[in-house]
């Protein structure tokens, strides 16, 4: 049976792993290559590295960090942040990434999704959607540039569009929940997951094992991503997988 994936995310700034609460107030959490290896050894199903300041500061992704991290990693490895062109994506793949995650550049030019998919395959293209609940609470809006810029685009409609452009997966972050530890936004996740036929990775708000149970059961997520709860040892991946397993959710265990 296809298992639900637990993805450890490394938010990287200046070559170091950091984690913000609602995208600000960063604090240092360590070396990306070391953390990635440790997460893989403890049972992470996949690693995502996001260069969180790349788009903002118009820097290219830290290719040497990607290369160093990829060298010791034999599970899927996704890299995002600052990928604006097909050439940027190609450089990240050459450095050892298996998938790229694009967000702002896809919003600016949805054809970029198609171009990367045609060259590297849909399985290599993850479109990240940062979604925030609208003031009237009726829908979610997609944000660009690391949550800094509103796009007035409906997040669910955008999800359908990225699928038709050739995206292989959607990495869906709830900006309302990100960094709060109060649980994933199951309404948002379910609405998107039920609207597309490609896998949806839920992100933002993980605070404990029960939140993962909820987002798989009620949110219909195919995978769930978290950062700080793993880095700071609030929750061991091993314990999380055992609990999911005991709740009847199929996970890769033992790894």
């Amino acid at each position: 049976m296809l298992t639900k994936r637990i993805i450890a995310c490394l938010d990287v700034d200046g070559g170091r792993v950091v984690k913000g609460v609602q995208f600000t107030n960063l604090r240092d959490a360590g070396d990306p290559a070391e953390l990635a290896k440790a997460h893989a050894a403890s049972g992470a199903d996949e690693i995502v590295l996001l260069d969180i300041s790349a788009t903002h500061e118009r820097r290219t992704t830290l290719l040497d960090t990607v290369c160093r991290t990829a060298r010791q990693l034999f599970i899927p490895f996704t890299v995002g942040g600052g990928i604006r062109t097909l050439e940027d994506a190609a450089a990240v793949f050459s450095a050892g990434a298996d998938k790229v995650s694009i967000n702002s550049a896809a919003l600016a030019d949805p054809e970029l999704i198609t171009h990367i998919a045609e060259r590297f395959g849909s399985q290599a293209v993850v479109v990240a959607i940062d979604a925030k609940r609208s003031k009237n609470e009726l829908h979610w809006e997609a944000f660009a540039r690391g949550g800094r810029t509103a796009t007035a685009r409906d997040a669910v409609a955008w999800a359908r569009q990225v699928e038709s452009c050739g995206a292989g997966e959607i990495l869906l972050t709830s900006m309302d929940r990100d960094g709060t530890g109060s649980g994933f936004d199951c309404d948002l996740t379910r609405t998107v997951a039920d609207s597309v036929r490609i896998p949806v990775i839920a992100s933002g708000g993980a605070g404990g094992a029960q939140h993962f149970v909820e987002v798989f059961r009620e949110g219909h997520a195919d995978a769930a991503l978290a950062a700080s709860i793993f880095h700071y040892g609030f929750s061991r991946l091993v314990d999380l997988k055992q609990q999911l397993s005991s709740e009847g959710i199929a996970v890769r265990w033992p790894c």
Partner: protein
Amino acid sequence: MIAIVDYGAGNLVSVKKALDWLGHDCAITSDPERVRNATRVVLPGVGHFGSTAALGRSGLHGAIADAIDRGVPFLGICVGMQWMFESSQESPETSGLGLFHGECERFPATVKSPHVGWNQIEAGASSRLFRDLPASSFMYFTHSFCAPLFEDTVACCEYGGRFSAAVERDHCFGVQFHPEKSGENGLKVLEKFCVI
């Protein structure tokens, strides 16, 4: 030298990285002569079956066929395994190697496609690649098309029905999953191929 065949599509770095890690002499190459003279040949997986048409244009198709005829061990990964069949519904106009009869098929509409993630394979006792693994091991898959079960299937997987997770005949092997991305289990499969 293990030749990792480069036909101008997709990402070959991961396979090279894994073989380097295991300590085997390997090189990414698009030169038919190097493929013909390799001690082993690996055809990695890329996104689309249609991209394998480049193998025919570049002379690599013939070079791989010659190597196989000489008895050189061959491993096709993901689309590389699908190419060992005659064709795929993904790109009906593109011919595969035809080592195995039949066509690779789309997943049924009852399941999400692509099939992405870790799934269990059930390997038969006869397979040489899976000898050191438990009968049921997790491997990482990412694909929208798959090969049906047939007499050379040595491991199967369940997703919208059962399909071939691995095929094997003589010195030719194909795996639908990505051994280079399947952690310790995957590295064991690659190591087995490298010492056959």
